[in-house]
């Protein structure tokens, strides 16, 4: 169970979103992919999932290039956007997912939706708030039961109670279904207990790639030094997200 990036670079015009990144996600661990907005986290995840293509380097999933369908079928990315038609209601979208994704567990998806109190019959995709949009995509990702689960800012717009529930359901899923998980987030302190290994990106480069082991409950070295350096940026980013979240409610 391995996702391997070798010297992967991605540019957008004059901006280098990812610079010669070499990293390995493997062995049924929970990884934190951490860093500020614009650090390259979403770019890396979208590259892995084959939604965008690298300018250089190679990406392999369990030894196969991620340009092959068989390789891509072994992962599921909870991206920033919903990929279902706006007019579809949630219950129908879940049934579609069962037909689209081999291995999708519809009964489990319904269980998860109920735990989150997602209004499956009443709501259309476009009527979901930022938070429930995130929850809908969390449900799809977990219920895919794919061996590699990638989450891009999974708790965006979720209230404290739903965030708590997300981490518990994720850990229960992880205990029951062997998988490698990548959690991309700027909320470093919140995931520091959940992850086993931290990959920290900064301006498109890998700053830290090491086990989180023995780091205390709070965000300590080296996460703390990173927070100290970039704390102000993270805070501004968070405020911006809150504003965006409020607009979309």
């Amino acid at each position, binding site marked *: 169970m391995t996702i391997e990036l070798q010297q992967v670079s991605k540019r957008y015009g004059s901006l280098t979103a990812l610079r010669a990144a070499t990293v390995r996600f493997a062995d049924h661990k929970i990884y934190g992919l951490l860093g500020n907005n614009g650090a390259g986290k979403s770019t890396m995840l979208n590259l892995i999932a084959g939604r965008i293509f690298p300018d250089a380097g190679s990406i392999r999933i369990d030894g196969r290039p991620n340009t092959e369908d068989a390789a891509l079928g072994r992962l599921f990315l909870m991206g920033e956007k919903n990929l279902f038609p706006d007019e579809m209601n949630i219950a129908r979208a879940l049934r579609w997912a069962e037909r689209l994704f081999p291995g999708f567990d519809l009964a489990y998806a319904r269980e998860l939706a109920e735990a989150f109190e997602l209004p499956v019959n009443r709501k259309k995709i476009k009527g979901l708030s930022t938070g429930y949009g995130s929850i809908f995509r969390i449900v799809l990702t977990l219920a895919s039961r794919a061996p590699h689960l990638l989450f891009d800012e999974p708790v965006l717009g979720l209230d404290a109670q739903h965030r708590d529930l997300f981490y518990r359901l994720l850990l*229960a899923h992880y205990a029951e279904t062997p998988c490698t998980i990548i959690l991309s987030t700027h909320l470093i302190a919140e995931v520091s*207990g959940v992850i086993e290994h931290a990959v920290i990106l900064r301006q498109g480069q890998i700053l830290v790639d090491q086990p*989180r082991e023995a780091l205390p409950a709070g965000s300590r070295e080296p996460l703390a030094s990173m927070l100290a350096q970039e704390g102000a940026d993270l805070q501004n980013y968070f405020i911006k997200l809150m504003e965006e979240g409020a607009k979309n409610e």
Partner: protein
Amino acid sequence: MELQFEGNKPIFQQIADWLADAIIRGDISEEGQIPSITEFSVNYKINPATALKGVNLLVEAGLLYKKRGLGMFVASGAREKLLQQRRQSFYQDFILPLLTEAQQVQLTKEELMQMIERGYPQNDD
């Protein structure tokens, strides 16, 4: 007893300390079963590897043992063993810092003894 994490100690150490305290208090009896790694993980939102590391500290110390397919159990004699350890470190961990502070604030030995007397319940006269 709820487990509340604090920032200064590694989580796996806090898991181990929490279990040791629970055994000393008798909340988990000898030959009793401790929560599973998954229960620790989900209840306290921690990585199972971290929970396992904490539990393993007590396994290595002979305080817990594994029954295959059933889970982790408290070894007999574990409570006494823990009490002995805690008593041994009591002088180092509590008495020495107490004496240092007493000297700094210029408490006499008699005053200190009186305070200790005062701290004990009154009913044993």
